């Protein structure tokens, strides 16, 4: 298939969508570059699905502009938008066979029957669904239904392909496989994909860019690494991966760096615009280093409250004067610390960030 030439960008310019007094999306702007996979991530009710439906044309903006492939589609209805969507429920037509479902978009677009069937077969083969043509959706497993839904959207060679929580109806093992398949397909065909999910791990695994939404606005946009390493806010820090949110004392030392005091520990890190005084600090669980307390005068000490063995790593909850810390330790599995043991606490600076 020659899909890569068709892939287009999506641009939101100050888009707002309100249902009466309720604002679902507030003054949102972003760009999805052609050929990339961008995830809309956030808790339920944050506006991510509304954003997706605005791209699809299933909702009309209250104000603002939407561009697809560079042209303004703000007032263009879903039918004419040249995007297709994979629904959470798959929305396979229950009265049509697999082949009829996949042919549907081509046939209503005026494609002659034999060409539509050929394209549909090709699409189904791409997703590893050969020999299911005459089955009804109800005769397929959840994973198979999901692939039919993807094939049905894909054969139209849309400028943008939309996924609305496509994995939520699948079991965990299948989820990992299907998300890899979606990513492979996207990479292979250089598709523009906008993908909605509330699962941060899924988002980190598949995305070129992640847009984190909270309360109808964009909380942060960036690559998975950026979001994990430099979360802009406590919300993002907590939502992407795990984070210990604690208070520390900051003192700027130059244009970029500052000295941060956590309990008795002091180290340098970027101040990211924060002013001197008390600041919020996000500490990744794997950035905390624990050593058995040896009686010497450690700057920060704590006590193991909980310990869990997870095979590849240990998880601890540690009580300290800066608060309870959740710690992941993948180095010390061979000699785990026990509950009640005293520890001295240290930090790896690139896992510690000043946040809003």
């Amino acid at each position, binding site marked *: 298939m020659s899909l890569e030439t068709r892939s287009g960008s999506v641009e939101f310019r100050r888009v707002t969508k309100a249902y009466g007094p309720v604002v679902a999306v507030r003054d949102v702007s972003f760009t999805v570059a052609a050929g990339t996979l961008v995830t809309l991530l956030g808790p339920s009710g944050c506006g991510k699905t509304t954003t997706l439906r605005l791209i699809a044309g*299933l909702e009309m903006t209250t104000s603002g502009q939407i561009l697809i492939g560079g042209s303004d589609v703000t007032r263009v*209805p879903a039918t004419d938008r040249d995007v297709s969507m994979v*629904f959470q429920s798959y929305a396979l037509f229950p*009265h049509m066979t697999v082949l009829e479902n996949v042919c549907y978009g081509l046939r*209503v677009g005026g494609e002659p029957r034999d060409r539509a069937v050929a394209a549909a077969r090709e699409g189904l083969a791409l997703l590893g669904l050969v020999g299911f043509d005459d089955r009804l959706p109800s005769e397929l497993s959840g994973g198979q239904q999901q692939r039919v839904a993807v094939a049905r959207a894909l054969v139209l060679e849309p400028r943008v392909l939309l996924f609305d929580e496509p994995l939520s109806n699948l079991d965990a093992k299948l989820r990992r496989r299907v998300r890899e398949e979606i990513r492979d397909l996207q990479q292979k065909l250089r598709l523009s994909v906008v993908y909605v999910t509330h699962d941060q791990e899924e988002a980190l695994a598949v995305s070129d860019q992640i847009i984190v939404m909270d309360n109808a606005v964009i909380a942060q946009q960036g690559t998975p690494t950026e979001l994990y390493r430099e979360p802009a806010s406590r919300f993002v820090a907590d939502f992407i991966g795990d984070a210990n949110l604690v208070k520390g004392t900051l003192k700027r030392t130059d244009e970029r760096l500052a000295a941060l005091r956590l309990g008795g520990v002091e180290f340098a890190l970027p101040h990211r615009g924060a002013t001197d005084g008390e600041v919020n600090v996000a500490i990744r669980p794997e950035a905390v280093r624990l050593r058995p307390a040896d009686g010497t005068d450690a700057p920060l000490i704590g006590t193991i409250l909980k310990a869990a063995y997870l095979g590849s790593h240990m998880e601890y909850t540690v009580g300290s004067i800066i608060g309870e810390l959740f710690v992941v330790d993948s180095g010390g599995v061979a000699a785990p610390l026990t509950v009640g043991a005293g520890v001295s606490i240290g930090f790896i600076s690139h896992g510690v960030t000043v946040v809003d």
Partner: protein
Amino acid sequence: MDRAVLGWAVAGGIAYALLPWYALEDGIFGFGWLSGYPTDRAGAPALVQALLHGRLALLPVAVFLLAPLAVRGVRGAGARPALLLTVGAGGTAWIAVQGFAVGGQPGIGVGGLVVFAALLMLFCVGMAAKGAFNGDRFVSGGIGTVVTLVVVFVFFPVSCVLVGAVEDSSGAFAPSEFWAKLSAREVWGLDCLSSSAGCGVAWNTLILGVLVGASTTALGLAFALIVTRTGFRAKKALRLLTVLPIITPPFVIGLAVILLFGRAGAFTTFMEQAFGVVPSRWIYGLPGVWLAQVLAFTPIAFLVLIGVVEGISPSMEEAAQTLRADRWRTFTTVSLPLMRPGLANAFLLGFIESLADFGNPLVLGGNYHVLSISIFFAVVGAQHDRGRAAVLSIVLLVFTLGAFYAQRRWLGRRSYATVTGKGDAGLHPPLPASVRRLVYATALPWAVFTAVIYVMILFGGFVETWGRDHRFSLRHYAAAFAVDVTEFGLHWKGAAWNSLWTTIEIAAISAPLTAAVGLLTAYLIVRQRFRGKEAFEFGTMLSFAIPGTVIGISYILAFNTPPIELTGTGIILVICFVFRNMPVGVRAGIAAMSQIDRSLDEASLTLGARSLTTIRRVILPLLRPAIVAALVFSFVRAMTAISAVIFLVSANYDMATSYIVGRVENGDYGLAIAYCSVLIGFMVLVVLLIQFVVGRRRLGRRAPTQVSLEGIPA
């Protein structure tokens, strides 16, 4: 330039310049108008009317039609939609206003109609271009069309009648008379609680409606459960049997009930001879009307509920069973609550049908007066009091709207979508034993009773004289349906042929129109979000709330004079049927459509299908039971309606029911009953044919046998 705008503007322009603007004596297909065309005063198009015949009020219409073509250069973002809105609203309003204001014009004809429709569509295109209804022109046009039709054919005639409620006999404004009539003792009196005198008509109507609604819903559910959830052997027969009463003109059931339970009735005679029970007139009054109405309207509840019971996703019930609910708890906590929208709909239909019924209270009411009958006699009887009729109609309206509101409250905002886009395999569990026994015990005796009623009807047509001379005779059939073979071909000699052909023709025209308008409305209500949707839904249901007698009178008042002059034509009958029966289609459509997940439509839209294609390829195939219901109802009701029709028939367009009532008035029971039997037989054929053509919904649920085979090791 937009093709839709260009198309409608050109269509309107052609109609304006070429088609006869006014209605013609012998109709557009009489082609008599061609002889003097285009200058002749009667058949001239609007352009000629305005220029040659001095009808200058038609001239501005041309401006409205030309405006969108002339200003095709308008570029500004908001300017074009605004222009279309102005042109559409201004043009349609102008046509309406000049129609009423300028005297001496004939009724509006084909030309005027097409121009009006074109301007209306330009308005709708403008709405869509402004971003209303998600920019969907089909939706915009659909809403515009339905709203206009309802306003013209429901609100306008009803307002003509309601104006009479606050007028005295000379036509002056008299609100005090309105109050006097509204609070009258014969309307709200409660004498039946304290003495043997009857209660007011309002209470009578309410009591009857609630009793009939509850009874028909319970019986309909029992039949629906037997057909879908048990291994009952004679399911097919049951389906047919329960369909029988709706294909019967309502007063026929009333007549049959009298033949059984009247003073000279078969059952009464038997009781007298066997047990010495003295014959009485107990059947005349609440018991008789209730009995006849329940017989007549149970099938409506059955048809509504069968779709609902079938539509419940088996996986929900299977889920409940795996949650350790036994069959009884599954039924009471899952199946039954999921049926609630259907049950509420069925009750509402039964209640409203009872309120609007005219035939049975007329035949069996005795001293038990209900509103529809009181309205009828207020107008045609010795009283001839239009004001009283109007006041009683308002009371009736309030009742129906109350039922409607209660139903909305009861159902709340729960989602009952059970046919989702996710393939759904599973089996409905069988009924718990206690429920099964109860359902059998309720439905089967009723089925037998219904069968007896029909035997009476068939038997009545083949005897010399009912009640006196029970010898076999074919003379009634011969009088009605004799056909002579002459040298010129067949000669339809029987007295009934004329009205039968008319009835079939009118019913066949109105049934698909009703189904189309009804399902379109249901689609708009269920699937689209727009401002004023509540009012829209209310408006489309309104015609159902108005008893046929009132509709009949209102149509005569509204459409007897220009600008819309329809009385005496077949068109008025078709329109009357379409708008009286539309709510049935709407209800059936709503009940079925709210069980189809919305994401199916959205998937179709994002796959590049237009709304119309989506409806045709996705929604309609899943809606087949609702389509069958709508077609069957509208055809059958058109053939069996009496209350409104009796005012609207004319010499050229006499309907079967009004002909039969005429026979009954002359005491010719034999011919009347024979004619009824033929009607019933004919409609059975039609119902079967429609069901065969439309077919059954295909959802890919596993058949019970398949599953039982899966359990057996190979």
